[in-house]
């Protein structure tokens, strides 16, 4: 019996000890009328050999190709050590570290992770992860609404240049609590969220302003200016940032004269594979003053009976298992294993490594744009400075171009028309450090030919 160790003998002895004749008897408290009789619509068991073959065949169908997809999930080099260690049984098959003394491995990893993330974001404290970047932004919004005592509104300034799916998720999660997202338009020339757009908004009581850095179009925002503007109006600042970029860019905690309050984002670029969109992890950090409003688990350092250092979950009074309906969030299971991977990743890369990755991502985009310069029918859609993604305006329907490159084994990016009707013939492309000069040349040539071929 797959994964069930009971021998006939065991079973008989156990039933005898219990004092019943059959396993069936153990279900006698279930009303007979409700009983079902097994499953008719589930296939019979396969052996591991058979499932392996099936899965290998399915996986082989889904070839990545030479991909320039980004849009919230990024292809980075992941050191082999990361997942060889992360999938060790002791990390992989442990539960949330409730019994601290039996979970020092996981707890110390979380503590180290919190330290790295706090520093990367320039803030004081980090939690132990949320589900993903989008839900982290939703939690940040909820947190800001709770924390902003000066604001009586439940309105959030949400730039249109934030990932459209993130905006969807934030809406889905927060609107039942009466939270309203006020859209802030982007400047069609720069692709940035300009101060003028904020000033044009009529309402003036907002709980928080979300600042994406870089934004969904890959463009770097004037985070300082936006932060100062919000700070002056007692609006909390939430940075929604790319963690790789943070190795180079000024972190949310240092934005403007006084710094942002909260930062969050998608942790996937830090050692987590693309994996069809998950599991990833959301990171969230904030200023010390807000720590009690933070959702999710937090590991703390303390001492044991003998005065020796050790780690334990702390500030649990914020959480659902203690505070129940008054908890800061309902989150329980988070993305622990991904955090383990990210902590190993950040340790292996170190400050220099992560900075180099960021600079290569950016440098590759620069090289790609340089190559495309002058290509007929291809032009950057925005003037704003990009990090590692850029929007290209094409002189041919995006879907045709995508299909043509797909046939050559190149996945060119995502078309923006579905999300931004105003960016109909626009393609969002991304370059990470994984791309070589040859890759860039191959892509630029193919793209150029495809756009030209449309005429």
């Amino acid at each position, binding site marked *: 019996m797959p994964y*069930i160790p009971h021998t006939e003998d065991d079973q008989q002895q156990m039933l005898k000890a219990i004092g019943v004749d059959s396993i069936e008897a153990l279900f006698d408290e279930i009303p007979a009328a409700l009983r079902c009789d097994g499953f008719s619509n589930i296939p019979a068991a396969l052996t591991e050999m058979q499932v392996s073959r099936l899965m290998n065949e399915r996986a082989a169908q889904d070839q990545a190709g030479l991909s320039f997809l980004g849009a919230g999930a990024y292809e980075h080099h992941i050191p082999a050590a990361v997942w060889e260690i992360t999938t060790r049984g002791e990390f992989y098959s442990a539960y949330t570290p409730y019994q601290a003394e039996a979970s020092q491995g996981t707890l110390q990893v979380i503590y180290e992770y919190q330290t790295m993330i706090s520093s990367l974001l320039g803030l004081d404290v980090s939690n132990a992860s949320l589900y993903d970047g989008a*839900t982290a932004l939703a939690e940040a919004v909820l947190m800001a609404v709770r924390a902003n005592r000066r604001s009586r509104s439940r309105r959030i300034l949400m730039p249109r240049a934030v990932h459209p799916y993130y905006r969807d998720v934030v809406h889905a999660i927060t609107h039942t609590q009466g939270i309203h997202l006020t859209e802030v338009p982007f400047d069609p020339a720069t692709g940035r969220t300009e101060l003028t757009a904020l000033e044009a908004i009529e309402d003036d009581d907002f709980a928080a302003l979300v600042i994406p850095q870089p934004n969904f179009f890959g463009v770097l925002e004037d985070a300082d200016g936006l932060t100062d503007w919000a700070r002056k109006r007692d609006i909390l600042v939430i940075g929604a940032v790319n963690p790789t970029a943070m190795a180079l860019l000024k972190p949310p905690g240092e934005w403007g004269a006084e710094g942002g309050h909260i930062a969050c984002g998608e942790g996937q670029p830090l050692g987590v594979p693309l994996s069809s969109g998950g599991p990833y992890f959301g990171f969230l950090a904030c200023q010390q003053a807000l720590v009690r409003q933070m959702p999710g688990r937090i590991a*703390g350092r303390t001492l044991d009976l003998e005065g020796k250092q050790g780690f334990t979950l702390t500030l649990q009074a914020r959480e659902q298992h203690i505070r129940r309906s008054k908890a800061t969030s309902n989150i329980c299971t988070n993305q622990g294993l991904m955090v383990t991977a990210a902590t190993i990743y950040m340790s292996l890369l170190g400050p220099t490594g992560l900075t180099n990755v960021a600079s290569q991502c950016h440098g590759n985009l620069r090289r790609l744009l340089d190559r495309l310069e002058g290509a007929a029918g291809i032009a950057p859609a925005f003037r704003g400075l990009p990090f590692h993604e850029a929007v290209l305006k094409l002189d041919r329907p995006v879907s045709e171009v995508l299909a043509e490159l797909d046939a050559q084994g190149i996945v060119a990016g995502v078309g923006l028309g579905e999300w931004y009707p105003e960016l109909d013939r626009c393609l969002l492309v991304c370059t990470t450090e994984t791309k070589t000069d040859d890759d860039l040349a191959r892509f630029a040539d193919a793209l150029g030919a495809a756009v030209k071929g449309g005429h």
Partner: protein
Amino acid sequence: MDEALIFERSRPGRAATSQFPESAQSNDIPAELLRTSPPLLPQTSELDTVRHFTRLSQKNFSIDTHFYPLGSCTMKYNPRACNSLAMLPGFVGRHPLAPATRSQGFLACMYELQEMLQEVTGMAAVSLTPMAGAQGELAGVAMIRAYHVNRGDLVRTEVLVPDAAHGTNPATATMCGCTVKELPTDAQGDVDLAALRNAVGPQTAGIMLTNPSTLGVFERRIDEIAAIVHEAGGLLYYDGANLNAILGKVRPGDMGFDVIHMNLHKTFSTPHGGGGPGSGAVGVAPRLEPFLPLPVVARDDGHYRWVDADERPLSIGRLSAFMGNAGVLLRAYVYMRLLGAAGMERVAEYATLNANYLMVELRKAGFDLAFPDRRASHEFIVTLKRQAKATGANAMDFAKALLDEGYHAPTTYFPLLVPECLLIEPTETESKETIDGFVQAMQRILAQAHEDASHLKGAPYSTPVRRLDDVRAARQLDVCYAPANTPEAPEAAEL
């Protein structure tokens, strides 16, 4: 052996250079956008990093090393094949926005998983997107609310929750903008029906239950409960954490539930990973299908595709940037294919056999059961109230002493209504000898409690650290390393 913090191993200028590219030459980012000091990431060699995290891992208890009868958590064996197959390059390298031409293998798995989960739960449709149980709950309650709102019934914002419920249930209700009404439990562990009748009314959005309940017993009058709530106009939400107990025996859909989340990281054996990732796929009765969170996978003529928002205007929307914890879903899919129909039924049978056997053996060994007249489901509760009074050794002390015996502790002090509570769930993948060994350990601890309870207060003795000071942890908050905030001179960096 102690393991210093990775930051304490850090040395300026040290680096695992094979892991990163050279810096790009040109940098056209203006200075005012750049950070001025590098982040506090460790500067260590690859060897020291590998050694550090390998050694840290050894400080964990885990299924792969220990019996882990943590009630409500279903800590069963996570087949290694589920991991290795979900990590095949084709799956791990697939971008979430990859075109359909490069997605049919993955989508086929997801589609079939949806179908199998429908069958298992008796629901009409499934969405795989929620990323853990609590997010499944959020999806469920949001759907219930959306359903009422869509019918123009705007006042239904009360959610009934039994007092034994997991904390995520009331917390979720609040997150969905609802208010929580707690329901008492009767002496047999069933919901107090009179109280329920009193509680329902025109404001009732629904009830959140799990059956068997978190008390480890099957709610016998579930059809009455369903009738009461449905008649009052509310819907029934099933917390799937306890599905392991009933697979193939009774289906939430058949019990009258309208919506359910499944903890794939429990019943479907995807790993807990030291705190996630999980997956909280939701299933719904037909009337809630239009509200399911997106994305969902459809099949047209043997071709798989995402169902998009246009086709589901009533959807509660999107709960994750992409499609939730896809890699976890793949693991659950592999697990279900390995077990097949018969295997899925056996799960409940042997989980229940193990729980009932362990329960009677502990009773024979002198322990008190919270519900001595009831069958255990896949888990059950021992209350140490009597022992705590007699010896001073409480549930926490037993839990810590078990660590010294080489067993992870059961869940302690949950559900809250049982004093000195140990919620024990052995799962179907553990053998009789393992269970017998655990009973013997409990007996030794009990004897020790009577002999010298103060010894138990000092437990654990054999773990990497002794009992930790939680109060200090909360009062002198230290959640982020800085050389200055170290509570005492860190011990000499040892290897």
